[in-house]
């Protein structure tokens, strides 16, 4: 997990009162955070040792780093690599190949990429020559020729490792693991994935060749550590150029973190997710409100940002609908209630809407069928409703079966906040029966 240093650089000194100051935020991965010390340090040491042995002793290894998203898997690897490359012995020897399952979607592309990154002899410029079969044979031959003592060790980093397991026959994984288990060029295969069941994806013979080393990176810290992280990440470092400002800022952060409401908001975030990315998002939203005239974060800022982060996306969308569209949504909700989630079509919705209009007897919402149709299509475009899977496109649009993609709570929440919502519509929505 990275420690974030948010660094503020005021282009003009505060004394001059220049307005054009800008805030720059630097995200810098620095030392290890104090949170999850035990687990992370252990994992870090394990990985570092492993890679060092590969680089220096020419030992072949394979390891998987598993953990939920945002737990710092890639960061762990980067830190380890940075530490490793500070050693001259490792730096001079280690060759690196970085692959990503989302980019190298099949073995053909992956092989070309490996060959390109290793810069083997069938690469000219940026192009890799030869067919898929030739490339594979070439790479395997190259790896086979090397041996422990004389060739440079190769580090393969496979990001989104689980996606590689879906390649045909798992050829790439088999070969990488096979090289790592035989007396060929020393390789270290590091897979990074968020799937806990990744080993079950591997074929038997591939699995057997994998060394079964797994580093589980789980965020096992509590709220106090979380709060501590927030504090350290918002604080300015001691070597900040403007000492006075840094002191002011740090003390303001200190008071901010001690604020009850802030703590509650953070607790809510912590309960929701321990992912550091979402925390960074929240803090970034707060920081963006800092300016020359307002050089500190107030609790209100954080609460605002928190509200922004936690608000419901679909409910927000409902605020932008017309009254007609809102009425249609309410009609759908009633239909859902009556038929227990069975799909509906435009005609049913329109009938439901008409029933409401008849009761009201004023013609304020008396719309033509085409207008209703248009509104219905707009709702479909917004993906608030979606056609039922498998319904044929041949059916007339009025009769195409649809499902509502909204929860009741979302509709009610949107109605509460809808600007100048007519009372009768509100009442209709609240009423138990259409």
């Amino acid at each position, binding site marked *: 997990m990275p420690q974030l240093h948010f660094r503020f650089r005021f282009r003009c000194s505060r004394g001059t009162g220049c307005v054009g100051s800008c805030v720059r935020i630097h995200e810098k991965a620095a030392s290890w955070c104090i949170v999850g010390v035990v687990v992370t340090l252990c994992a870090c040491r*394990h990985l570092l*040792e492993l890679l060092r042995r590969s680089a220096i002793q020419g030992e072949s290894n394979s390891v998987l780093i598993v953990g939920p998203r945002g737990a710092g898997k890639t960061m762990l690897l980067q830190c380890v690599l940075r530490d490793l490359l500070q050693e001259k012995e490792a730096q001079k*020897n280690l060759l690196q190949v970085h692959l990503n399952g989302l980019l190298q979607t099949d073995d053909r592309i992956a092989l070309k990429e490996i060959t390109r990154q290793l810069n083997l002899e069938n690469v000219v410029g940026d192009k890799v020559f030869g067919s898929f079969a030739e490339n594979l044979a070439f790479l395997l031959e190259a790896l086979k020729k090397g041996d422990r003592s004389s060739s440079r060790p190769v580090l393969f980093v496979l990001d989104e490792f689980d996606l590689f397991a879906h390649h045909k026959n798992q*050829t790439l994984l088999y070969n990488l693991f096979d090289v790592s288990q035989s007396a060929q060029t020393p390789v270290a295969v590091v897979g990074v994935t968020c799937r806990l069941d990744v080993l079950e994806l591997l074929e038997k013979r591939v699995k057997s060749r994998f060394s079964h*080393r797994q580093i589980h990176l789980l965020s096992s810290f509590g709220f106090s550590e979380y709060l501590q992280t927030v504090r350290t990440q918002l604080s300015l470092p001691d070597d900040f150029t403007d000492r006075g400002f840094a002191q002011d800022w740090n003390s303001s952060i200190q008071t901010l973190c001690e604020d009850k409401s802030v703590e509650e908001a953070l607790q809510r975030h912590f309960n929701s997710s321990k992912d550091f990315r979402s925390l960074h998002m929240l803090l970034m939203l707060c920081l963006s409100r800092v300016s020359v005239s307002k050089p500190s974060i107030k609790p209100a800022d954080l609460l605002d940002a928190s509200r922004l982060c936690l608000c419901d996306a679909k409910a927000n969308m409902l605020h932008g609908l017309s009254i007609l569209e809102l009425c249609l949504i309410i009609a759908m909700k009633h239909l859902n209630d009556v038929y227990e989630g069975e799909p509906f079509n435009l005609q049913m919705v329109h009938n439901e809407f008409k029933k409401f209009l008849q009761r009201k007897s004023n013609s304020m919402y008396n719309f033509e069928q085409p207008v209703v149709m248009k509104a219905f299509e707009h709702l479909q475009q917004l993906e608030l409703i979606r056609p039922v899977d498998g319904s044929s496109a041949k059916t007339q649009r009025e009769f195409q079966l649809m499902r509502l993609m909204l*929860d009741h709570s979302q509709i009610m929440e949107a109605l509460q906040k809808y600007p100048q919502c007519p009372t009768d519509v509100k009442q209709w929505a609240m009423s138990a029966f259409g």
Partner: protein
Amino acid sequence: MKYFTRPRVKREYRWRGKPLSFNRKLKTYDYGSLVISVEGLPRPTIIIPEQHILIEGDDEDNPYVAKVIRLFGDESGEQMKAVVQWFVRVSEVPLSKLKLLGREPHPQEIFHYQGRICDDEVNVESILRPVQVKHLDSATPFPNSDDKDTMYVKLSWDSKAFRVVDSALVESACEPASPSSQLPHAVSGVETESLHSATKLSASKCLSTKRRNLATRTPGVCKKLELHTPEKKSIIGEDVVSQLLDKELDSKVMLAHRLSSSPPQPHPVTHRLTPINKAHRSPVTQGTIRLKPSTIALNRLPPSKMNRPLLSARENSTRATNPSQRKEPQTIKDEDPALDVIAEEDSKSSPVLLVAATLRSSQRKSALLVSSRIRKQLNLLDNQQDLNSDGEDEDEFVPSQKELNGCSEEDEDDGEEEAGLDSEEEILVKKGRGTTAVFRTPRSKQKTHSLTRTPRKNPNKKQIMPGTPRTPHQATPSIPCRSLPTRQPANILEEARARLHVSSVPESLPCREQEFQDIYSFVESKIIDGTGGCMYISGVPGTGKTATVHEVMRCLQHAADVDEIPTFHFIEINGMKMTDPHQAYVQILQNLTGQKATPDHAAALLDKRFNNPAPRKQTTVLLVDELDLLWTRKQNVMYNLFDWPTQRHARLVVLTIANTMDLPERIMINRVASRLGLTRMSFQPYSFKQLQQIIMSRLNKVKAFEEDALQLVSRKVAALSGDARRCLDICRRATEICEHSTTNPSATGLVGMSHVMEALNEMFSSAYITAIKCASMQEQLFLRAVIAEFRRLGLEEATFQQVFVQHQALCRLEGLQPISVSEGLAVCQRLGACRLLLLEPSRLGVLQRVRLNVSQDDVLYALKAD
């Protein structure tokens, strides 16, 4: 270059003359010579004992080479046989053994075969034609030539080592045979020419003598050059015609000319400078620039070095005039009219070539060196008698050749131009061939063939060309070397770890003695009998299948090295290491012969190789790993693999490895399964005792583990899978844990139970429970909501919407602020990404269905422990 093979040319074989002797016991007649008449050729080829011949083999381009020892037939005259002494081509020597040679083999090099077990009786029908075989001293460099018709013998090969071959074995046999061994040059279509020439003989005689006076030196050089540049003929058209027509061979005249002309060396060069300057820029001459890199290199040589080849050339020409040597062809000529043609041809071509040579030499002085280099081969062609003296001559040449190599590096820029010209030249060659068809001699035809091939010979040059993206033809697959040496293991634990790595090759394979013995005896018997067979080996991963087969091969190879069994060729392919089942053919072919081909072509070649009744010299042992990957719908790859060994002449042993025991029954159609046969073996998973023994033997007295710890590991692994790899990996991990935990000095330094337990836990424990424990509050709540909803529904599946209702209720129960739907979806997605939940695609939003990927009990256990 295509040889005449039977499908194309009909041949007729018959004995010439009466039988020399009759063998009563075998009831065979020995004959003195064999006549092969080829359809379309009026004059038959005569094969006599002691002559070198080409014998039809698998590879059309590289027929077998042999020397006839004896010719015999049976009483009925139906069977015509020849006893031969084999020679081995470079391509027939296993690639692994070629290293023993210690140098790059010459493409035309052959080895006197002295190994055992080789069928030395061949049907005469498989004889293609005679060939020239020359013996060279081992120190002598190979003559530089593109000529495909002459083979060179330096060493003998007994399938284990290369030895210097006694020249008597090859050469003494060769000399008497020389008249007939020159036949091949005349075989294909010289007749017409000689007819022509006979008529115009006298008319062109004086002209030709004049030419000879001018074009003085070294006929060999010139011939060579002409052969490279047949289009030259069009430049000097009339002259060439007249000279081609000049059929009079007067070697004495030649002699005189040579003698007189050899001393004033630079003279002819200066003579001809003027006319050729014009030709220099003409497009036609560009064809000759093929030799450019070397010639440029020569230009840069200091003059002193330039002189050397000139000198040697001069020497050569004087040497060529050695009367006693020249006499021989002449006398033969008198006797044999057929040979006359050859001799005529030899002499005839030389003046023509002289013109070409002088053209060139005036273009660039340096061409002289090139020509002198090339001259050697042609000399060999012209007069075999010079052979013995060749040695000294070439020694002299060696340094300059070195210079050449050195210089050619600088000529990268020219390389590209050259490459471009190559193609142009090829076209020209084709054109030239079309127009000058009348003048085509068999030899020049062959030359043009080899000419078109030449661009392939210097791909390295292309490769190092800067800037131009070209397909690297012969890129060598290699990983760069490390700059710093590897560090050696420093302590006992590191040493143990190195030994326990799966890749470290153990001294012996314990616990697989029985399987080893079975496979060994199976393969050994097949090799000794010279037959073929299949074997199917099955077993779960990590039970030592591949390792055992490799061990067997190592032992057999050793046995072959010490001459206990005949040599064999071991090839290995792996279904997982190819992109497509049909690539198997390509890989087998490449391993066998070094050829590259498309899958279809490779299949055809292999089919031919294994199905043809050609004499085969070695058994091939083929290991097919991960057989199930070679499955195709038609199963033709597997069919072929199992069908070849059943062929009588194939001498192929196929060992197949796969994981499942019943693979043949499950995936193979009957005709494939039947060919695989019933020789099967199954590797059982290791028992804990065996695993323990494996670790002990790997450690080999390095004391790093406590007794109990080892037993724990092996028992645990044996109970789970019996996979030796797993066992070794756990031990390795345990040594690491031990290393890190030896902070307290009281520890023994050995890997104990606790370390092993920790390693086992790391590797085998599922992370689900810890993951649930580490999940955030809302995630845990969501899991509880899922279970609650499942219980309510009585199903193992629910939509997000349903679960979310439960979730809201649980939130209120726990006193937490209910979360919004978006947030709830995010929580659900996070759990789905870890695969604690199984989800439908997220585009379904609240409608997506949710399932648990962990058992409910596990979830409840993990949440309760909190």
